[in-house]
């Protein structure tokens, strides 16, 4: 910033003294643009004519504000955030998952003696969304995005958060409606999401989600439907704590090995 002008120079500038040459006026003006203190000092030197002119202008602006149209709220800020967080390719998968949760609730109501389908479905409910969150098959702009510095674990987690933000409230609603334990719905759901990301570091998230969903269906869902008895991993007691532990460990692994996610295309 330039040095502050002398008070006498400032006073002569305020009066419009013709003795002040152009170079001196420019120096004062370019300084005033950057220095609020000197602008405040300048107001002390204003002449009556300048004050009258400023008041007329202020009154005119006030009239214009009152008479003019109200300011339009800018919807851009919202849409920018939406575009950055929400990927359009996720939408159909989230709708499909929501429909499946709806069907499970319906089955629960129609066949109350059967083991809760909502409970069996909850762990794998976020997996379709997680699988398409970052995959070269489903994201049309994958090659552009993969070359940017923002690509990596942070982007995967952001997209996963969007999936969870849609699926988890639906599960809570389904749990409340059918009287299922909320902890038994959400803890396995989080554990499977975190595990598929952690396993995804090694074999690709797309493949990891598919493998985990297939394992769950073969090891838990089928036997439960055959025997009509809930397995121990879905009974209240120690189960929610166990699932939470799995979620914490796998999240820790994914964060610790964030370097494995820098080139998400390999294996996806």
């Amino acid at each position, binding site marked *: 910033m330039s040095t502050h002008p002398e008070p006498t120079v400032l006073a002569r500038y305020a009066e419009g003294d013709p003795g002040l040459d152009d170079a001196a006026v420019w120096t004062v003006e370019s300084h005033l643009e950057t220095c609020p203190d000197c602008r405040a000092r300048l107001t002390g030197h204003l002449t009556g004519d300048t004050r009258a002119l400023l008041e007329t202008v202020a009154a005119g602006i006030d009239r214009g504000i009152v008479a003019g149209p109200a300011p339009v709220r800018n919807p851009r800020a919202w849409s920018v955030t939406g575009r950055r967080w929400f990927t359009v390719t996720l939408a159909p998968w989230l709708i499909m998952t929501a429909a499946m949760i709806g069907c499970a609730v319906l089955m629960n109501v129609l066949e109350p003696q059967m083991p809760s389908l909502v409970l069996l479905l909850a762990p794998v409910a976020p997996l379709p969304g997680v699988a398409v969150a970052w995959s070269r098959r489903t994201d049309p702009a994958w090659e*552009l995005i993969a070359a*940017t510095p923002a690509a990596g674990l942070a982007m995967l987690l952001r997209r996963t958060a969007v999936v969870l933000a849609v699926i988890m409230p639906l599960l809570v609603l389904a749990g409340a409606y059918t009287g299922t334990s909320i902890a038994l719905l959400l803890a396995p759901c989080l554990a499977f999401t975190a595990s598929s990301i952690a396993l995804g570091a090694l074999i690709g998230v797309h493949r990891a989600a598919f493998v985990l969903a297939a394992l769950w269906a073969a090891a838990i869902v089928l036997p439960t439907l055959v025997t009509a008895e809930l397995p121990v991993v879905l009974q209240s007691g120690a189960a929610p704590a166990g699932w939470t532990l799995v979620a914490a460990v796998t999240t820790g692994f994914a964060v610790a090995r964030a370097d494995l996610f820098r080139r998400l295309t390999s294996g996806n």
Partner: protein
Amino acid sequence: MRTISAAETAPATYAWSVHAEQLKVKAGRHLAVDGLDLRMQNGVHGLLGPNGAGKTTLMRALATVLRPAGGKLTILGQDVGGRGNLRQARRGLGYLPQEFGFYPRFTVREFVEYMAWLKEMPKHTIPGAAQRAIERVGLTTRADARMKTLSGGMLRRAGIAQAIVNNPLVLLLDEPTVGLDPEQRLDFRELLRDLAVDSCVLVSTHLVEDVVAACTDVLMVNEGRLVFQGDANTLIDHGGPNDAGDSPAERGYSALLRRARNGGVA
């Protein structure tokens, strides 16, 4: 007017913007780039080669999309071959893939701004940088049109706009002139010369005349190896009257290719 940061005026601490030694890159299971040595500084570099020579795979590796299967690759002084941090190098990169996907409902401006955000540009500079990039490729009148309404040539130009939005130090353009009409190609060559003043531009193309007209340096690859690097006049000098082609540069190109196929390296 833009404030210039200290980082921008700092001298570079690396000798080559792009430096590859014995680079090997796989496309699927096939080793598409096999022991390629490459050194590039600022300027326009034209990448020529027949189909399947490994041009696109090389571009993807330079853009840090593919992990090299072997060798050493340094971009802007950062090692990008292994599992190191790619962030610093990627911030200085601009990349236009051969076939680039996009979100069809985004407008051109939204698309370029989104890419600028992904390239981690400071938030307050994004709208201005996007507008500047769109103006440079001549899409100002279509800036608020949705991507799905654009013609092939316009899409290509939107792709170039997203590549240059962060003023990249290394700009990789894979077949940028596909779909551009002759007048736009002339404008594009002008843009390339302009960009190359302070960045390293690598343009992959099939059109030999584009390379001769706009590039200060010609690279030729065949079967994953660099078979020629030199200026356009040297390329022309390689051609004899009996070589295939309608222009001196095309004759030089086919002479070099024939020699590479016969096992010799120029």
